[in-house]
């Protein structure tokens, strides 16, 4: 992993994708240099002027173009901090620490991969899918949500690879849980998933049944995001590991989940 940085980015565009989700486009300053972002990494954003938030908010990096230094974030309105971020006016300055954490693995050229995201969990799959394709891997996306309006960026993912969809109410794609989608019926060289824990557990179970290695991205509560406070730990075969340093991406074989 490269150097962690602290910088002010400019919010050049903000777009509501639905009632609950927004896409933020940030322009990073030249001082970040040739910052390397691994798919799966996140940033910690300071929420200024919000009286009831104190700590930074950890947000997955959805996309990053190093040449233009443009970073894309997807944010879900989950509480005061994220509501505040989703309501920011264009031109706002954002105080950011990152990139943090580890990234998903990218298998060898010629491999197949399934990238499964639930709700806001699709965010890191954009950069992951792009990097995989660049490296000769064939990504297939599985997007899951409660209803059609909460399926995010389906067109953008379709420009990269095959897209399968699951909605709880059947208003798009297959009706039911993402973990029950038919696309999970085959083997992949790697399954990467991010979303609510029960969804990831279901995906991991299917992956195991098909002999596919599986990596999950955890959303454990964090105070520092830097590896210092030890609040975000996940129990693993190697003891309690930090979701912000040894994670957020973990191989399911390391976790103590029953899958």
């Amino acid at each position: 992993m490269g150097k962690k940085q602290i910088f002010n980015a400019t919010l050049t565009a903000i777009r509501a994708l639905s009632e609950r989700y927004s896409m933020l486009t940030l322009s990073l300053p030249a001082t970040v240099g040739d910052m390397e972002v691994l798919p799966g990494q996140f940033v910690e954003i300071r929420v200024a002027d919000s009286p009831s938030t104190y700590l930074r908010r950890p947000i997955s990096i959805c996309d990053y173009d190093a040449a233009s230094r443009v970073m894309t974030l997807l944010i879900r309105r989950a509480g005061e901090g994220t509501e505040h971020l989703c309501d920011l006016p264009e031109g706002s300055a954002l105080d950011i620490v990152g990139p943090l954490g580890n990234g998903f693995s990218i298998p060898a050229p010629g491999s197949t991969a399934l990238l499964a995201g639930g709700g806001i969990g699709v965010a890191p799959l954009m950069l992951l899918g792009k990097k995989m394709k660049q490296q000769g891997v064939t990504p297939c996306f599985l997007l899951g949500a409660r209803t059609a309006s909460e399926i995010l960026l389906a067109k953008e993912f379709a420009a990269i690879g095959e897209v399968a969809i699951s909605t709880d109410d059947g208003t798009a794609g297959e009706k039911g849980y993402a973990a029950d989608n038919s696309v999970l019926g085959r083997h992949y060289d790697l399954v990467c998933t991010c979303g609510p824990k029960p969804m990831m557990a279901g995906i991991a179970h299917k992956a195991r049944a098909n002999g596919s290695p599986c990596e999950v991205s955890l959303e454990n509560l964090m105070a520092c995001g830097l590896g210092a406070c030890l609040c975000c730990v996940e129990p693993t075969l190697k003891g309690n590991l930090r979701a912000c340093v040894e994670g957020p991406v973990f191989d399911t074989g390391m976790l103590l989940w029953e899958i």
Partner: protein
Amino acid sequence: MANCQASPANNVNLAVEIAGLRMKNPMLTASGTFGFGEEFADFIDLEKLGGFIVKGTTLEPREGNPYPRMAETPSGMLNAVGLQNKGVDHFISDIYPRLKGLDTNVLVNVSGAKIEDYVAVAEKLAQLDGIPAIEVNISCPNVKKGGMAFGTTTDGAEAVTSAIRKAWPKTLIVKLSPNVTSIADIAKAVEGAGADSVSLINTLMGMAVDVERRRPCLSTVTGGLSGAAVRPVAVRMVWQASKAVNIPVIGLGGISSGRDAIEFMLAGARAVQIGTANFIDPQVTVKAIDWMEDWCRRHGVADINEIVGEI
């Protein structure tokens, strides 16, 4: 007050001393908030600090408490980490070699569940050349007294301090719990038992409830409150403790800026620690040092030691 007014031509002296521990400035970082220092090396030059305090080290490795271990609260946070650490032997073999060459003080926070464990850790650390001071965490529950924290009674505080005093010849700092009726009494007991300095406050006991899930936010139900919200309590206790003892006091509890650090020094602290604020701004420590220096110039203070306990 000042014999020699600070002027643009003169440098302000920020160096302080805590019972033989010489620090280039009063700024330390609190244990449990700064890892082993390396976690912050991308953001600041560690050698600019007066020192940093390595997280709570116990005799045996500890996994700590189950997740969830934190909850955000107004202007603060609760934590229930439970002293997760790989134990003193791992610190000595794996971490210490990387830190001992740094041009800043590296202090170790020592924790334990029984007095013998504290003493064993102190004895092992005493073999190292590069650790000039230890900070003893007496907020730990004493398993031999039904889990009541050592630091909640004068007897408990005294017993731990005098045992470690025999095992640790260098600067001995005892970190006090604020969850007591009289911080002055605890500070006096610890001074009487041979401590060279007291640091306060550790976290205040608090609790939070998740109303949607209808359960406590922390796996342990209660936890330690830190951050800006505790600052007025910490300032009050630093003031009370420093009036009660002759040994130097190190102040912490919600310090988030140079202004806050000066507040603690005026109230009686000779050095300060920044903890939780590091999470929000990983560069807060160096910014605070610069602000303090500037404050001294503005106030005509040539030597920051002049302001200690001015209140």
